[in-house]
């Protein structure tokens, strides 16, 4: 059954790599933006909120095209990063990770933001009276209390990355071994005669990976929940 061709293995491997990178790279930004949206008082907060949520409402193809325009070889950000840091996104797996990160970002921010808003700020005041400065309060009280939301946000981001198709294929195309993730590979199989078996194999693997991710997150959530038991 799991008699995968090298290309198929590549797609599985690549999907997981892209998903993990998308999740990890967007996490610090996700926490920062969630914090700004939950706690910040500044001009343009609704604008930031709108921009963060755009990928959720735009057609993925549009998001992918916008990425291509800005992060592509001739795009303003893409050329700057390539010249100064040697980071290239276009038609690379890094581009796939970027597309997935952008698409999953609103989901991640939402989960973390809700969790930050639920933190009892009186606990932070209590930590302050015990001598903890703002950064320590954040690290020792706020962050641990927000952990369940962070885990949820990470899982959502990873899940979104595993399923992302439209933005990825628009931005970095469908190159086996480089940018061909599971959804792209399945799509390719459905486009050629006799590709049904391959599509089915990858579909089953997709389901398995998603299930494992869900179970692991559930275990995490339970463990954290047991530790906290907030009254």
């Amino acid at each position: 059954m799991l008699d995968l061709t090298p290309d198929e293995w590549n797609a599985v491997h690549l999907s997981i790599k892209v998903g993990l990178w998308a999740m990890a790279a967007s996490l610090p930004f996700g926490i920062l933006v969630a914090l700004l949206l939950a706690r910040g008082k500044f001009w343009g907060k609704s604008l930031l909120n709108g921009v963060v949520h755009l990928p959720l409402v735009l057609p993925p193809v549009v998001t992918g095209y916008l990425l291509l325009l800005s992060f592509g070889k001739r795009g303003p950000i893409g050329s700057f990063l390539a010249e100064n840091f040697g980071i290239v996104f276009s038609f690379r797996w890094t581009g796939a990770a970027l597309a997935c990160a952008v698409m999953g970002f609103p989901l991640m921010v939402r989960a973390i933001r809700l969790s930050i808003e639920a933190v009892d700020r009186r606990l932070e005041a209590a930590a302050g009276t015990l001598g903890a400065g703002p950064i320590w309060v954040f690290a020792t009280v706020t962050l641990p209390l927000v952990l369940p939301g962070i885990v949820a946000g990470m899982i959502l981001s990873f899940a979104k990355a595993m399923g992302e198709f439209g933005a990825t294929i628009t931005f970095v195309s469908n190159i086996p071994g480089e940018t061909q993730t599971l959804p792209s590979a399945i799509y390719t199989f459905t486009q050629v005669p006799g590709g049904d078996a391959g599509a089915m194999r990858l579909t089953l693997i997709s389901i398995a990976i998603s299930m494992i991710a869900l179970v692991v997150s559930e275990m995490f959530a339970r463990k954290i929940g047991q530790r906290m038991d907030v009254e």
Partner: protein
Amino acid sequence: MTLLVDVRHRLGALELEARFESAGHLTALFGPSGSGKTSLINIIAGLIRPEAGRVVIGDRALVDTAAGKFVPAHKRRLGFVFQDARLFPHLTVKSNLLYGRWFTPRSERYADFDRVIDMLGIGHLLARRPALLSGGEKQRVAIGRALLASPKLLLMDEPLASLDDARKAEIMPYLERLRDETRVPIVYVSHSIAEVSRLATDIVMMSNGKVAAAGPTAEIMQRLDLLPPEEVGEGGAVLDLKVLRHDEEFGMTVLGAAAGEMRVPRLSLDVGATVRIRIRARDVMIATERPQGLSALNVLPGRIADIGAVNGTQVDLRLDCRGDMLVSRITRQSLKTLDLAVGRDVFAVIKTVAFDRANLSRGTAPVLTSD
């Protein structure tokens, strides 16, 4: 160490304008709900920034708006015990207790972990999570957590208010030990006369955002006119008396007041110990001659020192019993019929004596000392 507070701050409809100074060991901020006492303690802690004024502890100014000075809460080194414990749910009891110690410079740490644990009786809880503690246990851990940060001043905001009577009774002795066995000055917010008269050495009486009176407990407790309406019945004199001897035949204990002896049900205290008693104004009757054939055991001669303002049908008298001040609440009619006036010699008939505590000046060495 003297605490000086002189602040002005507007909070919604409440105009807080308070000034007091206290060097007491346990200063109670006392007054009805909405009188501004919680705002005041939050200002001392640095959780509220006052619009104008000063907060000075010893020679260290924490707030001085004229000089543009405001020390943030985490740099004040004051302990704060909240009404709702506020233990960190993600940490064990032990980690909660040690949290503040972490931020205390080594040279300023005076609180000893084992002694504090022992004093509060929380040694068996160390490995637990806060969610599994009872209300009383949580509050004891919260007190320990504040204390272990080695604070220069301990602030307590109605630490018993959210507990039922049984839990209050459970914590009260620990608060007394805290007061007697440590040298950390305490500021204690409360609206309960029972708590304040039992614990406080000094009282700052708050009313409508202003300080109505401030001074030693015995003095302030007599000002029935200042008490919140629901607590007036509990108001009266607070006296610290010595145990003279025990009368085993009738199971009584004899206490020495300035104007004579007082007999109360047997106390399990040594002769010579000091006990704090509270005599409610409503429990003191006035007689113009020494009464005969009366079941009340305690009759003290005294002189009317002061007649308060008439309040409806009632009026409060203050009696000077050779230096011990008693308060009596009688009807306006009795005042007229008995022809009572300031300076007249009368007898105070005391119906009941309330024991706020067997107040032990045991002379134990302080467990903790702050500089």
